[in-house]
């Protein structure tokens, strides 16, 4: 019964034009990232200074940068960097937030108080300042980036999950479970988890572009991914420094950022509608 339910959710997602568009864009970037060596027309870090600053042409569909590297290939490999970091970080933060949030919402009161204090103090720090502080201490790099994102995002996810858990714990159907004799483990995993995970998935999907932007931003500042590894952020920076010589670079480097942000946001909103069984009937018809 539950696999049929999931299939129905997918159909509902596809019947929503925005959701379908979001899913399409996300899949496009995922394919780009997974199959980068086959999708990319050239080596993204191979220099060819003789052909620098070339505008888009048949040989280089998106032109070349200041060192003559193929821009399209760098964008494709940049998708790999962006998605690897964003999905890993958001995924880890989501799991962490889910566990901590359910502990806070379902566990003893004193533990809840301690955790909420922790969440509040964490989220009172501005994200980029916190990122800069951690990078200063640990040193820049992919691992640091993921660490920063996980630490910064957990409180928001945990707070969402805690609120959901608390609200549901008093709900009649949970009290009914307890009255029937269900164990705490069964109530947690069979009844609370499926009801809190939906909103979390939506939030996670909408946070992926935030992390992609953070990665790009820090890489732009040379505090993220180390060159010559391609990142949309350092491509954008290269474009900015040579905006007079080759204005196409900035536009082309900005495009994937815009499209991936839109894609993940549409997908998140589509998921929100498709996963809610009360809305499902209306959408699926």
């Amino acid at each position: 019964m539950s696999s049929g339910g999931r299939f129905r959710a997918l159909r509902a997602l596809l019947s929503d034009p925005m959701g379908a568009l979001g899913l399409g864009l996300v899949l496009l970037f995922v394919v780009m990232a997974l199959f980068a060596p086959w999708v990319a027309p050239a080596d993204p870090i191979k220099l060819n200074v003789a052909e620098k600053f070339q505008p888009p042409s048949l040989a280089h569909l998106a032109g070349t940068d200041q060192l003559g590297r193929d821009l399209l290939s760098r964008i494709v490999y940049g998708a790999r960097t962006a998605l690897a970091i964003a999905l890993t970080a958001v995924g880890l933060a989501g799991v962490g937030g889910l566990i901590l949030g359910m502990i806070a919402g379902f566990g003893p009161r004193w533990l809840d108080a301690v955790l909420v204090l922790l969440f509040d103090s964490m989220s009172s720090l501005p994200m980029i300042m916190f990122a800069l502080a951690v990078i200063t201490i640990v040193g820049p790099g992919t691992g640091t980036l993921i660490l920063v994102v996980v630490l910064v995002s957990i409180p928001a996810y945990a707070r969402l999950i805690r609120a959901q858990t608390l609200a549901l714990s008093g709900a009649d159907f949970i009290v009914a479970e307890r009255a029937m004799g269900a164990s705490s483990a069964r109530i947690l995993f069979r009844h609370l988890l499926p009801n809190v995970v939906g909103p979390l998935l939506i939030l996670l999907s909408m946070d992926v572009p935030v992390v992609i932007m953070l990665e790009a931003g820090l890489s732009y500042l040379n505090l993220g991914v180390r060159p010559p590894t391609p990142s949309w952020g350092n491509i954008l920076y290269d474009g900015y420094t040579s905006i007079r010589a080759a204005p196409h670079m900035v536009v082309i480097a900005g495009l994937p950022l815009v499209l991936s942000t839109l894609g993940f946001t549409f997908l998140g909103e589509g998921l929100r509608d498709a996963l809610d069984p009360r809305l499902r009937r209306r959408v699926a018809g």
Partner: protein
Amino acid sequence: MTALLSVRDLAVDLPLGRWFGGGARALNILAGVTMDLQPGRTLGLVGESGSGKTTLARAILGLQPVSGGTLRFDGAELRRSADFRAIRRRTALMFQDATASLSPRMTVGEAVTEPFVIHGIRIASRRGKAAELLAEVGLPAEMAARYPHELSGGQARRVGVARALALKPSLVIADEPTAGLDVSVQAEILNLMADLKDRHGLSYLVITHNLALVRHVADRIAVLYLGRLVETGPTRAIFAGPGHPYTRSLIAAEPKPDPRQRRTDLAIRGEIPGILRRPPGCEFHTRCPVARDICRSAAPALHDLGPGHSVRCHFPETTSKGG
């Protein structure tokens, strides 16, 4: 005969201001509740909103911590949570809001067979069992694939009954079993409950504010006012000669087909006082039509009015003359 359910001096307090206000203040939600339910019988628990009916139901099932008194189920005392867990297979709770008591992500079929899964009872086929349970409450087997939000109020109520009766419990606590239903559907549900009671030898604790309902289904009645039982007795005796002014007012307030039989002199005025401002003396004196000075200062004791019929009032005799 030992009572199936025996409640003695049950009290439920909610502490107020645990962190900063000091632990001294507490809300008395229920105090001194004493009642018995014999096997195979129906006890009607009557009271207004805020009188503590639902809290009492949850306390009996161990879903609400109690602060005093004793609970016995089939002779065995219920103290620790393990005691309550041990009787979960033999008790069931039907909720006032049947739709909300079903998990929104579980189909009806999953919901009604949930008790078997919880208690690790092997059933040949979940689908077959679901169809069997649904048939027992008069629902078609196709209903098993539906989600709770796709059910009507009456259907959700039937599903609630099917789930409550899945394990053939000895005690079913029904919280407002007819709330929010059309009169015709109310009758269907009541007949269904009576039918299943005869077939499986159940005992019901029916919680309601609806006197017509308890008159119809209950063998005995307990009237709750502000967390205290003010009158208990056999249904017939209470309707024939209510001893407590509150009970008399409730019965007088029942709609009567003949307007000449309606009485307004017994009408109670105002709202039930907030539980935060529990009146001293007799709780009911603020709204009692026959209150005297002693009612404002001293809490009344229980008086026997007949076999198994007792009332908590200073002037049960004088007041009963008016009825």
